[in-house]
């Protein structure tokens, strides 16, 4: 739980103090301070009142972070200009998050009752649907076509034309999309116990409904959830998230902080990378960076990214467990059964 914010009696006085105070970086914090700061985003957020005076007060409280106190409530309603250079002042990002906060992650499994496994995932405003079909017999054409013949998974990504701001006609031969599909396929291939399914194929079809940054990460998370829903044995969850850095490649400033889970706006302005890890470990399945960044920033970005993946794993695990508990409650599966009888599975509904 976050410590309560320090009450500020005189807004003007603290304002002056703030302008006089040199920037204190979180890197100077002790471990305990950091761990205090590294709370999951699900921690209760005090909603600021709509009263403008209170909001101003809250903003000042947010800026009091510069007095080395990281102990105030995350002020999500504070309006920030689009320019990320203001970040250094309040240490709040464009959407009011702190450096290590994920956006709201909402996920559901078993959304399409007709499919073998399905999921729906939102990371902020990025929305992805995933349907898993299989394992089924490998088609003769598939056997011939793929030179990497041992691949069990077959990943297809379709990005809806309306998913981003500018409408694009989806092209079948977009190399960027096929690279993403390849990445998801190759990462999950090693997580799935492929030896159980010889000569089979599992097709994962991902549909992107809305894009607002962290697209590849969302695809990873949605695919993992759907695979779990389909009952495919995996060694662990493959979870992903993005992390960035507040410095642009040109600026050699030392004051750059790593950021977690970037939205589209931040992705366009800041260097970022996508990390996917296996389970709660520090082992990285996929690491993709497409922007220019100082090599010294990498360590911080990677550490924050791996930490974010752990947070995502907890969230996804909670989704699965809640769903499982609900199914037991509804009698869809008997307690202790590994897999329920086929008929019962089919009849159960949201």
């Amino acid at each position, binding site marked *: 739980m976050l410590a309560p914010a320090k009450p500020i009696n005189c807004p003007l006085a603290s304002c002056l103090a703030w302008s006089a105070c040199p920037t204190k970086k979180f890197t100077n914090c002790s471990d305990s301070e950091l761990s205090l700061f590294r709370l999951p985003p699900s921690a209760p957020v005090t909603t600021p009142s709509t009263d403008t005076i209170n909001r101003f007060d809250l903003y000042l409280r947010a800026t009091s972070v510069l007095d080395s106190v990281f102990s105030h409530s995350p002020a999500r309603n504070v309006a920030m200009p689009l320019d990320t250079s203001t970040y250094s002042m309040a240490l709040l990002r464009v959407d009011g998050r702190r450096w290590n906060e994920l956006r709201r992650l909402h996920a559901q499994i078993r959304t399409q009752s007709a499919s073998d496994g399905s999921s729906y995932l939102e990371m902020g405003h990025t929305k992805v649907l995933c349907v898993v079909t299989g394992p089924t017999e490998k088609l003769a054409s598939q056997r011939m076509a793929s030179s990497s013949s041992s691949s069990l998974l077959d990943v297809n990504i379709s990005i809806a034309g309306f998913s981003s701001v500018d409408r694009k006609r989806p092209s079948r031969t977009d190399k960027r999309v096929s690279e993403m599909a*390849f990445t998801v396929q190759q990462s999950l291939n*090693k997580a799935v116990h492929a030896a159980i399914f010889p000569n089979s194929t599992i097709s994962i079809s991902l549909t992107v409904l809305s894009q607002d940054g962290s697209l590849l990460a969302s695809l990873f998370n949605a695919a993992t959830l759907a695979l779990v829903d389909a009952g495919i044995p995996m060694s662990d969850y493959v979870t992903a998230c993005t992390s960035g850095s507040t410095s642009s490649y040109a600026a050699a400033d030392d004051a750059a902080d790593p950021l977690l889970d970037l939205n589209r706006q931040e992705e366009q302005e800041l260097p970022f990378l996508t990390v996917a890890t296996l389970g709660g470990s520090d082992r*990285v399945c996929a690491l993709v960076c497409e922007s220019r960044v100082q090599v*010294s920033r990498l360590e911080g970005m990677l550490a924050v990214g791996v930490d974010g993946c752990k947070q995502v794993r907890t969230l996804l695990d909670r989704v699965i467990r809640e769903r499982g508990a609900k199914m037991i409650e509804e009698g869809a599966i008997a307690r202790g059964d590994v897999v329920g009888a086929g008929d019962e599975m089919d009849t159960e509904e949201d």
Partner: protein
Amino acid sequence: MEKGTVELQVWHQKFLRYLACEGSPPAPGRISSRDPLHDKSSSHSPSSGASQSWFAIGIALIFSSFLKSPDKLNSETQIPLPAVNMPREAEISTNEKQFLKTALTENVRIDGRLFEQYRPLSLGFGEEFGVAEVELGKTRILAKVSAEVTVPYADRPFDGIFQIVTELSPMVSPAFEVNRPTETEVLLSRLLEKTVRRSGALDTESLCLMAGKKCWAVRVDVHVLSHDGNLVDAACVAVVAALRHFRKPDTSVEGEMVTVYTAAEREPTPLSWLHSPYCVTWSFYGEEGEMALLDASWKEEQVQVASFTVSLNRHGEVCQIAKLGGVAVDAVLLLKCTAGATVEVKRISEMVDQKLEEDAKRRDKGGLMAELRAENERES
């Protein structure tokens, strides 16, 4: 028409003639030796007549692709291929796989290199500007740059056009088909794209001649001549070297008139080059990918459990990182590999700079002589 294009047309016709005389296409070694760019004879010679004709078709297709405009390339190079299933890449045998893996656990690589050792990397330039050939062990890559004046994209009126086109033809391996990009090709072209184009190595704004009306379209064609692993690193060196070696015709703009001068009229100008990124690829082995090898050969690539390509320039800026799946590798090892890559990139960078300088000196014979004479005078 550009000098290079004419030359290529001549080659193209030559190859068409080779194709016409059925049954006896010339051996690839001989083709290479006639070719002014390839002074070293090819190490690969297909054994059967059938594969030779495939080879010839591949060559013909490559050169025919030069003659097309870049944007129409994909739609127009529809060649009626015989409806047969292309043979797959011969897979490495189980015994050989086991041998490789066991040797690695005893810290031995099959070619006797250290784990963090590159194969010998050599770089050569053609007679023409903008042609570079890279050899990394047995991997050979040829990159050729060409430029033409076109209309810029409507949404980017102030930018020129810059594209990198990769070709993996059947002459590398029968598994590659023309017009059907394989996974390898897509990944290679994406990596080059991200490394060189997205990182802003070439200042595309400098290619603009008249906003919204005329600009240079610079195109790099990457041809893989032989594949013995680590295509990405070799191709990246080839692309960067070729672009830095390239000279585009000088131009002048008067009102609405753009004049393009020939090399005889005005000295061609180099491209506006901002930084030189190079790729370094690590391959991982072992259950948890705990062993990291630099510059894997083709055989080693067949056994790897994951690969990690990082692109850097000598200023220590990461331009691109790609670990696209595979076994999960410890994050700390990835950071170590990146640190190792920075050292390697500095070495490659120095090598390329030196070769470019040597080539510039070779071309500037008159200037060099003048310099020497001046020095002698001072000494005497």
